[in-house]
C-alpha cells in the first residue's frame, strides 16, 4: 500500500483536523488583515504534541515516522485557515528542531529541545541578509574565534518569527573566503548581550505570522553553541533547507484539500444561465485540474516522506527534494488561482479564503530556495555545468 492510501495516515490527519477545527478557527480573518500572530495558539498546538512529533524519545519527543508528521500538517492546514501560523510552526519543527536534533550536541539538545517542544521557547532561522539571499557566500555576518567563544556580528533580515523568537539558528562566516567550509551555524539566545530584535516587515501573504530583522552586535557565543562543527555550516544549511523543501511544503496540502471541497460545492450550487456553473466545461476542467494538482502534490510529498528516516540526512534525496518543492509550489499557486476564479467576485473579496490562500501560496516559490535556483540545483545534480 502507498503511504497516501494508508488508513493509519488518515486517522492522524483526522485527529489534527478535528483539533484544528475545534481550536484554531475563529479570529484568523481578522489576524490576517492585521498581520497578527497568536502565541496562545502556538502553545495550544505545542500542548497537543505537534512539536514533539519528529523529536527523539530520549529527549521527550514522540519520534514518529516522517509520513505521520505530513499527515498532522495536512490536518492542521485543512482544519484551520491559519496559513502563516501553520508555516511557522511547521518550520520550527522541520527546519530548526530537526536540525538541532541531527547536528546539535547532547548538551544543546537537552538544554533547548524540551522547551521548544512544549512551546515555552520559540526559534527562528537566521540565514538571509540584505546582501545574501540565494547566494549564501555573499553573507556579511561574521563570527571571530576568541578563546572559548566566537564574537558574532551581523544583521539577519526577513526572518520568520523574528519579533518574538528567543532562540535563533544563526549562520555566519568563520572564514572570509567562498570555500564550502566558510560558514558556521550557531544557536544563539536572544537574551545574550548584543542580540536585539530589529525592524518588522509587513508582507502580502502568510500574514498570521510575523517577520522581522535580528541584529547581532559583538555577541559572545560559547563554542558549545556551534551546531555541527566550525566550518560545517554548509552541511547544516543544506540539511535544514532540504527538510523544508521536502516536508514543509506539506503546508500546501491542507489549504488545497479545504479549497477543493468548497469549490466542488460551489460549482454544484452556484447557478448561472439556469445551470450550476459546474456544468460549463471551462469550470469543470478547473476542478479536474485542481484535483490533479492536489492528488499529485500529496503523492510527491508522501513518496519522499516515506523514504526518509526520522532524524536522518536528506542529502541522498537532494534532487527529489528540489523537484518536490518546485512541483508542489507551482501547483499550489495554480490551484489557488483557479479557486479564486471559480468564486468570481466573491473570491476577490478580502473575506474569501481563496484570496488568502493565494497570497500565502505565492511565498512557496521563494522560501528555502527560489523556483529558479532549485532548477539550477536539479540541473547541477544531473551534471550540467550550470553556474
Amino acid at each position, binding site marked *: 500500500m502507498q503511504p497516501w492510501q494508508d488508513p493509519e495516515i488518515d486517522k492522524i490527519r483526522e485527529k489534527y483536523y478535528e483539533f484544528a477545527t475545534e481550536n484554531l478557527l475563529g479570529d484568523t480573518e481578522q489576524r490576517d488583515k492585521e498581520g497578527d500572530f497568536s502565541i496562545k495558539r502556538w502553545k495550544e498546538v505545542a500542548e497537543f504534541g505537534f512539536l514533539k512529533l519528529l523529536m527523539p524519545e530520549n529527549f521527550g519527543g514522540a519520534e514518529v515516522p516522517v509520513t505521520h508528521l505530513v499527515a498532522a500538517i495536512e490536518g492542521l492546514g485543512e482544519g484551520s485557515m491559519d496559513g502563516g501560523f501553520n508555516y511557522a510552526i511547521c518550520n520550527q519543527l522541520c527546519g530548526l528542531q530537526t536540525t538541532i536534533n541531527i547536528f546539535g550536541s547532547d548538551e544543546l539538545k537537552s538544554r533547548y529541545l524540551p522547551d521548544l517542544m512544549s512551546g515555552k521557547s520559540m526559534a527562528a532561522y537566521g540565514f538571509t541578509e540584505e546582501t545574501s539571499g540565494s547566494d549564501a557566500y555573499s553573507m556579511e555576518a561574521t563570527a571571530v574565534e576568541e578563546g572559548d567563544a566566537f564574537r558574532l556580528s551581523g544583521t539577519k533580515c526577513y526572518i520568520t518569527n523574528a519579533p518574538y523568537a528567543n532562540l535563533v539558528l544563526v549562520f555566519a562566516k568563520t572564514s572570509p573566503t567562498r570555500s*564550502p567550509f566558510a560558514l558556521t551555524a550557531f544557536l544563539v539566545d536572544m537574551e545574550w548581550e548584543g542580540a536585539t530584535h530589529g525592524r518588522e516587515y509587513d508582507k502580502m501573504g502568510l500574514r498570521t505570522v510575523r517577520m522581522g530583522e535580528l541584529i547581532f552586535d559583538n555577541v559572545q557565543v560559547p563554542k558549545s553553541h556551534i551546531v555541527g*562543527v566550525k566550518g560545517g555550516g*554548509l552541511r547544516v544549511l*543544506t540539511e535544514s533547507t532540504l527538510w523544508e523543501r521536502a516536508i514543509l511544503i506539506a503546508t500546501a496540502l491542507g489549504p488545497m484539500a479545504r479549497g477543493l471541497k468548497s469549490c466542488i460545492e460551489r460549482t454544484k450550487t452556484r447557478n448561472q444561465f439556469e445551470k450550476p456553473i459546474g456544468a460549463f466545461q471551462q469550470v469543470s476542467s478547473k476542478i479536474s485540474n485542481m484535483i490533479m494538482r492536489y492528488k499529485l502534490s500529496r503523492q510527491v510529498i508522501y513518496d519522499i516522506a516515506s523514504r526518509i528516516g526520522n532524524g536522518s540526512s536528506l542529502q541522498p534525496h537532494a534532487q527529489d527534494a528540489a523537484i518536490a518543492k518546485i512541483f508542489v509550489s507551482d501547483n499550489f499557486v495554480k490551484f489557488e488561482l483557479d479557486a479564486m476564479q471559480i468564486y468570481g467576485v466573491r473570491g476577490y473579496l478580502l473575506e474569501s479564503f481563496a484570496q488568502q490562500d493565494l497570497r500565502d501560496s505565492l511565498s512557496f516559490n521563494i522560501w528555502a530556495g527560489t523556483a529558479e535556483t532549485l532548477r539550477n540545483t536539479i540541473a547541477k545534480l544531473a551534471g550540467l555545468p550550470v553556474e
Partner: protein
Amino acid sequence: MNVKESIKNYILSELVSDKENSSLSETDQLIESGIIDSLGIMKLIGFLEDNLSVQIDDMELVPENFASIAAITSLVEKKLSD
C-alpha cells in the same frame, strides 16, 4: 578500481565542468581553486557514503580532509581500516 582512482574518476566525471582540469593531479587544491564548490562537496560526500561505504561524520567536515584527492583518499582509507 582502488579508492584513489574511484575518487578521482568521480571528481573528473561529476564535479569538473571544464576540460582544462581533466589532468587533475592528486595534490591539486580542489577547494582553494574552486574545482569543488558548495554543491560539489555535498555530492562528493554522498558519493563517498553510498559507493565507498564510509560514513563522513560532521567532525570530519573540515577543509583539510577535502583539500585534494590525496587528502580525501587518506580520509576514506583511514575510515575503512578503522
